[in-house]
């Protein structure tokens, strides 16, 4: 196995955006991750999968800094987060965007105001400029223009996810974290969302880590997949993981749903090729 939990080295000379080494998280005596290594490179989309209770969300929260690691080093954009305090920590937040599972939009603000919160905090632009940016982000994530003046409680679940993505993109962050972005969306909405993420990732040059259980998303969007196995991460391309000999991985990708997603992807590729 190559460095950083990879099955084969996929760095290809790219910058390391995220680097985890020997990370250990635990709640009480319950160890969730141990000796966990994981790397992400600039401009790639990585899907994080794992069985229930393997700590996907905990890993995400640990990387973001909401849940301190007991041991190990976490480097984001070349900065070690362990002893990061005050201004340096604040500045790092400007380069990360997080879309939480249920949106986590501020319920007392409108959608446009939600998007303006990070801009106001980190860039301090004029009101008019911020309104323009908010309107653009709302259009980018595919929400109707009038949703900017709405409260989060007036939006449907899928729209809240998009609004939350718009807020995460407010500052054009280099690193974007998505927590189950397509959970609870209908298949058409989920497919559109996948395309949206791909399109935004390419045009804005984002690096994306998404926790997902949606096998179609994994096939459609992700360059690499990170699997949480035995408290550690094994990361590789879809082909590498399909060949990886581990009962959970085999069942996950070769089970009925995994096969269905794979054939769906082949069919799509074939129709595009014509």
């Amino acid at each position: 196995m190559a460095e950083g939990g990879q099955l084969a080295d996929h760095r290809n000379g790219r910058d390391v955006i995220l680097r985890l080494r020997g990370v250990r998280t635990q709640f009480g005596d319950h160890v969730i991750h141990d000796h966990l290594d994981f790397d992400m490179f600039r401009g790639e989309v990585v899907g994080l999968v794992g069985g229930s209770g393997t700590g996907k969300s905990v890993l995400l929260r640990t990387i973001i800094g909401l849940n301190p690691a007991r041991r190990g080093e976490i480097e984001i954009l070349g900065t070690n987060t362990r002893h990061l305090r005050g201004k340096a920590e604040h500045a790092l937040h400007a380069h990360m965007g997080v879309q939480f599972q249920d949106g986590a939009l501020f319920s007392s603000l409108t959608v446009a105001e939600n998007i303006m919160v990070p801009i106001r905090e980190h860039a301090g632009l004029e009101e008019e400029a911020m309104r323009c940016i908010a309107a653009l982000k709302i259009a980018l994530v595919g929400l109707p223009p009038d949703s900017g003046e709405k409260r989060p409680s007036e939006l449907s679940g899928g729209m809240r996810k998009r609004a939350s993505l718009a807020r995460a993109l407010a500052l054009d962050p280099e690193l974007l974290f998505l927590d189950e972005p397509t959970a609870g969306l209908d298949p058409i909405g989920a497919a559109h969302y996948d395309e949206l993420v791909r399109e935004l990732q390419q045009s804005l040059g984002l690096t994306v880590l998404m926790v997902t259980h949606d096998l179609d998303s994994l096939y459609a969007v992700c360059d690499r997949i990170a699997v949480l196995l035995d408290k550690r991460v094994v990361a590789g391309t879809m082909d590498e993981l399909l060949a990886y000999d581990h009962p959970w991985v085999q069942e996950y990708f070769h089970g009925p749903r995994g096969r269905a997603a794979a054939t769906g992807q082949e069919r799509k590729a074939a129709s595009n090729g014509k």
Partner: protein
Amino acid sequence: MVSTPIFKYVEQGGTPVLQASGNWTVFSIRGLRRRRRLNRDRPPVRQEPRLIDITGVERLDTAGVLELLQLAGGGRDTPVRAREQGQADLFRVVQSHNVQTPSEPHVNWISNWLAEVGHSLVDIYLQIIALCDFFGEILVVTAGALAQPKRFRPSAIVRQMYEVWIAALAIVGVLCFLIGVVIAYQGVQQLRQFGAETFTVEAVGVGIFRELGVLLTAIIVAGRSGSAFTAQIGTMQVNQEVDAMRTIGLNPIEWLVLPRILALLLSMPLLVFWGNMAGLLGGAVACTIYLDFTFVQFFARLRDTVGIWNFYTGMIKAPVFGMIIAAIGCFEGLQVRGSAESVGQLTTRSVVESIFCVIVLDAVFSIIFLLAGV
């Protein structure tokens, strides 16, 4: 370091061009618009630029693109000349998501204020209707339960009684005791001017029995139990637990509301009695300190001069107040819709409304007792 965004309008082969260089990111464009507005008197362009040249731009993001498009006069399809393909793509993405600059919402504060007053009046009206509706539903469910007494669910009632009665004994006791001390002290101070300080006993007895014991207890209960009812039921409402109950065929009024109302209906008189005793004790302690009374003298005088109906009037009010507090608490809990935010709002509202109702009812009771001559 962040290099500042620079732009100028030039002509290249007869075409007006907007030439930009430096960093055009959300962090570097601060103040650009303000500076432009200050220079408004000097017209920077004679003609709208036909081309945006960003070959000199080092870093670019969507905010920077928006700014450049604005400088180019808002032309959404102005072609762009870029050094890097990525920057050209970024331009294309932003331009394709055609954004109208949203205008600042116009605010007219007079009509806003009038609308707000109107809305709150309608809200109050609807609230009263809904509350009457709710009381009716409680009565119907209670009548149904009376026909089948096992539907009263004694275990739930007992559990609620523990929360609203036993757990509240300490705070009600302490506060009523302190109020007893305060009234006795004030009574001694004022009545001593007429040499009538022994009447302090009547002041304490009548004051605590008729009004203060029951009012103070009701306010404490509204603050700790009424609000808890709203928060509990409201949280269940947010988690769709109440909807789940309905689909299983359980009536939330019977399962959630009735046990709480009955628990408070039974607990309130017990709490008020306890509060009255604590208040009297406080008065007695104060009298032994300020009047050289003994406990025996205090209670003997109380027995001789304060009629038993003073005690009854307070106790009659207790279950009514308890019921109204529980009903409003549960009602507001069931009003919760959607977000966790509304749980907080409605909890506040439930406390305010129940204290309001308690004081209004207290005034009504005063009139009734006056007419009844007790």
